[in-house]
């Protein structure tokens, strides 16, 4: 009997540590932040319940609308940019060439380096006025713009940092391409299909579940982007790179309006949720799974 009881709870012991971490480090902060979003919590001192005032204030806050606009623009540039780039590189790296594994590794390196501060600093020096990029352009007679100092170019330049980290999407595409049966291509060849036709009629439909996965994951990440805008441009010039994540950080950790910042996070959560659902709905029409 005793043994049986022990056996019954043995499993809980195994996952206990994970559960402890989940409850204390994830669930507890999640629930607390939801509560804080209805209070005027400012880190030190108490938190008074103020109903939905934070949420009302946010929708009247010009900074909120501005950061939302910037973030949508960023998502629209960075996500398709990264996925298209990753797909192109994956198509190249799927070829049977000598030393191809070396190239696959090399192209993955930017993703290992990630959106770290050091990389962001490096990009600042590359794209600053009189930086490496403009020097290279001047060699071929092009006067490059002030990439990070001009409000027209700054967001695009910041997006490049994200697009450059295409490694993980690329690997997924690469694995997907390898899964496509070669018989499809052979049949197409016999029918006289062009390379372009083969790509759009075989490769892309077969890869569509991976495209979906990449779009969803990259979109979620892009909505929460913070590091490059914080380190490279601090949201400038003229707030042209004032991403939502930056506003959240500023409100919460520079001005310490934690209640307000918590409400901001939950709004972001809702936005990401809505777009994820929309993408899944849309995908029902366009994504082909092998067993359909």
């Amino acid at each position, binding site marked *: 009997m005793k043994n049986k009881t022990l056996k019954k*709870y043995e499993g*809980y012991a195994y996952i*206990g540590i994970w*559960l*402890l971490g989940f*409850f*204390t480090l994830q669930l507890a902060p999640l629930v607390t932040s939801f509560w804080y979003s209805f209070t005027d919590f*400012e*880190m*030190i*001192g108490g938190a008074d319940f103020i109903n939905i005032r934070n949420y009302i204030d946010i929708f009247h806050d010009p900074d909120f609308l501005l950061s939302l606009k910037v973030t949508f623009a960023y998502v629209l540039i960075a996500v398709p940019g990264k996925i298209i780039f990753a797909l192109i590189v994956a198509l190249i790296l799927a070829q049977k060439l000598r030393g191809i594994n070396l190239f696959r590794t090399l192209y993955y390196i930017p993703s290992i380096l990630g959106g770290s501060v050091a990389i962001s600093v490096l990009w*600042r*020096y590359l794209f*600053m*006025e*009189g930086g490496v990029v403009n020097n290279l352009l001047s060699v071929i007679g092009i006067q490059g713009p*002030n990439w*990070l*100092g*001009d*409000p027209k170019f700054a967001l695009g330049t910041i997006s490049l940092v994200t697009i450059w980290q295409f490694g993980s999407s690329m690997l997924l595409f690469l694995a997907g391409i390898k899964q496509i049966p070669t018989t499809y291509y052979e049949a197409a060849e016999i029918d006289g299909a062009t390379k372009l036709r083969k790509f759009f009629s075989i490769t892309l439909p077969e890869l569509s579940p991976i495209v979906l996965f990449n779009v969803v994951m990259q979109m979620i990440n892009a909505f929460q982007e913070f590091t490059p805008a914080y380190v*490279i*441009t*601090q949201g*400038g*010039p*003229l*707030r042209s790179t004032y991403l939502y994540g930056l506003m959240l950080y*500023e409100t919460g*950790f*520079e*001005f*310490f309006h934690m209640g307000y910042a918590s409400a901001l996070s939950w709004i972001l959560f809702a936005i990401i949720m809505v777009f994820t659902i929309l993408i899944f709905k849309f995908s029902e029409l366009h994504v082909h799974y092998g067993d359909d």
Partner: protein
Amino acid sequence: MKKALTIMIAMLMVCSMAFAGGSKEVDPEDLTLRMLWWGGDNRHTPTLAALDNYTATTGIKVEGEYAGWDGYYQRIVTQLAGGTAPDLIQIDQPWFSELCSRGEVFAEIDPEIVDLTTFDQGFLDGYCTYEGKVMALPTGVNVNTLLVDRAMLEDAGIDPDIVWTWDNLITEGRKVHDKDPQKYLLQATPDHVKFWFEILMAQIAGGVVGPDKEILFTADQAEQAFDYIQQLYDNGVMPPYQQTSLFYQKMYEDPNWINGNYAAVWSWVSSMERDMGQRDLDTTQFPVMENAVDTGVLMRPSQLYVVSSTSDSVTETLKLLDYMVNDETAAEILGTARGIPSSSKALAVLEEANILDALTVKATNEGIAQAGAPQSTWQMNSEVIDAMQQVIDEFGYGRLTPREAAETMISSLESTLARL
């Protein structure tokens, strides 16, 4: 399942109890004090040595926790909120009233334990007192200074001993850019343009925001300041705003500054060494207009020491604090790691041992001679600074004329101050 949940909740409670800290006096023998500061190696090394010496003489262990500037404020606010703050903390002066206003986060400095007579009473009253209680002690004296590259001035045909006025800053200053289009007299990243705006406003109107949350200037007065800054750009005294905007709050990382394309920069004596980098620079005084209401040159404690109210032993921490600011051996070990010491006792030790850096002393004396009134806590508020910076950004990018910038500055400050 219910049982499992009960167990889980019990575990959580045990954990939270283990983490909860309270204020209690601990036996000195079991006591380990923690001290937190920010800085570079030139501060870390002497501070750690001073703490070691304290342990050697008193037997009380002190753990040094040190970091860089980035994220330091976030760190202490989080620790204060969570009750895990170190016993002795170095903070920046502008944070003092903001933190004190949030509740009893710091302990009062007991004059029975810490000798306060070695400090200038005006300094204690002006910067270290909250609601009549001394809650902090200044580490050192810090003043604004204008760093200049004498060789660059000479090259451009400017007398390196020039006494700067607002007029000759333009008439002479433009010579640097006239001679070499790559070069400019005055480095001014966006935050520095804001500093210059504040200096001008102090001289024209006595400041930006007063102690009662009131705006101290009129649109005409702000327009005068913006007009002048516009002239600095038009005459090539300052590099174009776009060129420096990338180095907001990181002036010293700008390759144009490091490589000697700019001849002068506004600085604090406490961060002078970092700002100079490898360059060989001198210090000088700021221009002051005739009939100036104030000079706009700031003097304040380099940093403040505060004692956390949740300390395991406030008494022992205060003894450590007294050692850090007043002890002769400590003074000798610490040197000028936190600027020229504010404690007369520590200063006497350094003067006698002749270990004061000549340029630091010169810059400090120049600054003290010119120092104006301190800025109000409202003017130093992070949201007010942010509001000012945004208007200056739009002005710097040519989106606003001096008149429009002046009017926007007033309306933007009004709405920010109303929110606070």
